[in-house]
């Protein structure tokens, strides 16, 4: 069994083969027609509860009765001998086994305080400081792409009420929420469409766009059926249904030839100050929902999953020790994930800082060792074909010296 020393780079399963041949100026993405999805877990996911460092000698003492069980019906899923996955995530485990999931542990944003709102701003705007609302890093990526690029022309799909900060700055973002009200009949829609065509081109265009969108995400009945299939036999809460609906709609929209190439989803429920537990409790419920959403996204994307990278991230991690309410408080580093057929997965990448008391950030948090922006830059360079210069100046301003992580994406 691999027992990594502190600060070594971990490579679960396969070796960390650096492939450096990727051209950085020439557009590498071309014929692959890549797709990219950003999933934000709001509230601050406890990285230790999702991917537990069961091989760390200090792990059991800090988590005590809430350590991940290694045997029994709820046993953790071994990833690489050092890390183990929460058993509430069977679909994610399957992706990992197929080499389509990669974990980056002790990942962090540029933010070091403890406010959710500011931390989410920093995560989404990619600038290193809160209070910048004009545009987000993914919006800037889309704006930077050549105008004839498939990814730029087909726009982005956001399962949100309004354009999320991550995507602000992009020219064409379609927002979508699970159908809120009983739908008007096709007949009413057709009559209205005809009225707009004769009276108001702006409304006619918007109506046509809405109808086209409901065509790709499926009618309420169709997507409802897909969601039911996914939740079959489960005692699904309203909240699970909501995230599965959003993931299904995003996946269906992105699966089409004419569909958007970029997607955005978010989900809350990770601010587990109280009764977090580990396989049960709040984190168990939130992770179950996340696992269902991941499965729904994969299933609904169909064959295009093979050209997809999904980045799953959160604004910060949580305290290493449990608090007095069986929960954890706001912390610093945590785990991030890359999922999809284009991911060179089946491994955990970590410059592991350790859980010993003197290794903790400010004596309480998992220490930050891998900048999330280096991960995203690696994906943006190798999957979407952006140059490191653009990434360091325009997309993540001021990060010219932060090298993109190599080898995150499969070579075609």
């Amino acid at each position, binding site marked *: 069994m691999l027992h990594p020393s502190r600060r070594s780079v971990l490579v679960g399963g396969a070796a960390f083969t650096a492939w450096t041949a990727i051209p950085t100026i020439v557009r590498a993405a071309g014929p692959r027609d890549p797709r990219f999805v950003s999933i934000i877990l709001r509230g601050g996911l406890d990285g230790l509860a999702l991917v537990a460092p069961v091989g760390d000698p200090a792990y059991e003492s800090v988590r005590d009765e809430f350590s991940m069980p290694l045997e029994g019906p709820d046993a953790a899923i071994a990833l690489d001998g050092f890390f183990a996955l929460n058993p509430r995530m069977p679909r994610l485990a399957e992706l990992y086994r197929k080499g389509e999931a990669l974990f980056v542990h002790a990942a962090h944003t540029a933010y070091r305080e403890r*406010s959710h*709102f500011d931390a989410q701003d920093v995560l989404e705007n990619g600038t290193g400081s*809160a*209070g910048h*609302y004009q545009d987000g890093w993914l919006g800037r990526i889309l704006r930077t792409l050549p105008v004839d690029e498939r990814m730029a022309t087909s726009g982005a799909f956001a399962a949100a*009420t*309004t*354009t999320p*900060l991550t995507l602000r700055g992009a020219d064409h*973002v*379609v*927002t*979508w*929420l699970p*159908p*809120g*009200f*009983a*739908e*008007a*009949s096709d*007949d*009413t*829609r057709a*009559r*209205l469409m*005809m*009225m*707009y065509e*004769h*009276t*108001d081109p*702006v*409304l006619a265009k*918007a*109506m046509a*766009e*809405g*109808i086209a*969108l*409901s065509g790709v995400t499926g009618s309420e009945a169709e997507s409802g059926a897909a969601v039911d299939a996914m939740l079959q036999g489960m005692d699904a809460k309203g909240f699970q249904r909501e995230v599965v609906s959003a993931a299904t709609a995003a996946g269906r929209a992105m699966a089409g030839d004419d569909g958007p190439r970029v997607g955005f989803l978010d989900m809350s429920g990770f601010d587990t100050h109280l009764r977090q537990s580990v396989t049960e409790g709040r984190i168990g419920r939130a992770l179950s929902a996340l696992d269902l959403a991941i499965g729904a996204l994969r299933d609904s994307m169909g064959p295009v999953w093979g050209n997809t990278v999904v980045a799953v991230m959160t604004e910060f991690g949580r305290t290493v020790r449990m608090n*007095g*309410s069986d929960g954890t408080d706001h912390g610093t580093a945590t785990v991030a994930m890359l999922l999809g057929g284009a991911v060179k997965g089946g491994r955990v990448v970590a410059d592991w800082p350790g859980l010993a008391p003197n290794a903790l950030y400010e004596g309480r948090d998992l220490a930050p060792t891998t900048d999330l922006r280096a991960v995203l830059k690696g994906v943006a360079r190798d999957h979407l074909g952006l140059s490191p210069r653009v990434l360091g100046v325009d997309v993540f301003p001021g990060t010219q010296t932060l090298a993109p992580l190599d080898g995150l994406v499969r070579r075609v």
Partner: protein
Amino acid sequence: MRSPALTAATRFGLGPEPGGGPSREDLAAELDHKEAAIVRGPDLATLREAYVSADRTLRTAARAFRQGGRSEAAEMARDDARQARNQIMREAEADEIAARYAHGVTTRHPFLERLVLFWSNHFAVEAQKVPVRVVAGNYEREAIRAHVTGRFGDMLAAAITHPAMLLYLDNARSFGPNSPIGRRRGKSAVNENLARELLELHTLGVGGGYEQADINELALVLTGWSGGMEPRARSPVFDRRWHEPGTRTILGTRYPQKGEDQLRAVLDDLAAHPSTAAHIAGKFARQFVGDDAPDDLVEALRRSFVDTGGDLAELAFTLIAHPAAWVDEPAKVVPPYDFLVATGRALKAADVDQRFIRRAAETMGQPMWKPPSPAGWAYKDTDFLGGDSVLERVDFAGIMVRRYGKGVDARRLARSLMGDDLDPFVAETVDRAEDRHQATVLLLMSPPFQRR
């Protein structure tokens, strides 16, 4: 050619009106009825007291639970205390949403209401943090409505010193290094969020001539303005113990005033600054008339703002007095909340469950008091039309008509609301609908309800 009455009802009002829209004189007359913009509700002191007391009880109970061996009884007491605090928040929100909607549907001064919506959005707060959710509606009533035909400087001062704004933009816990608290703790915690937005969004505007140094100085002026909803033993709106003493220099002017007077002096000068007049004039013109509002309209508004010392009734009058504001081609999409109110007015449905209002606003893309950033809703000409938002509007109209439009004769209503402006194609679509329900839905979705 659209009639001026329909332009007035849509561009300056809350949708088509039975019997035709108002004249320019009718609109001007609304500006003399400042009391008509008022919505009654609990005052700030009452809400603060209720919240602060419940929050204190919660904190005491939480401490007792943590320090007292985490007994089950103590846990229950804490959870009850949290319930009680959150109940105050939920009730306040429910009452404010119901009151705002009912006022919008029943007011005979819809132009005033549009001005309220403009200014409430200009001084946007987001009802996200618990204490902000408690007072967001009060903020609109006491800081915005009360000054909507008054002076800009008064509205500015009322908005900036209201706890909703102070807490939303993180000023509540800001303190300077030489404040009594700063000295005792041997550090400072100056938050510049509010100072930055105050200059960039509320007054001078981007490129309005300020620098980072001005933001730093203004942030120090703002220290001590806690909003009075903090869990401290004593929590006044302005807390001298947290205020950084000393003279500050902003935009070249020295402010030697002490305590609260310092901020008031700064705000007076910012309200009177030429950049503020230019910023407000441009935004006012674009949001009422369109993204391409002509320069001479903007210039007339700017001059009015300067000449009258920021008189907001005069500003509104200048808008409706200008020919460019009356071009008959609609430019802007009616935002979801305004459409929601217009639907309520057309169906005479003032008493609607606030949970439905809240959900409808959110589903159509404009959740109440939850703008995407301190800049508020952008209100560009075709904003709010993305994705499937038109379909959401149809579905919303469908529910409203089912619940509140039983006795409505859409054919007659169409003629009453639009008179000679009724587009023959709209008339035909409504007249040939397959049933009464569909006819009314189609009428509510017709361009005069969606574009202005």
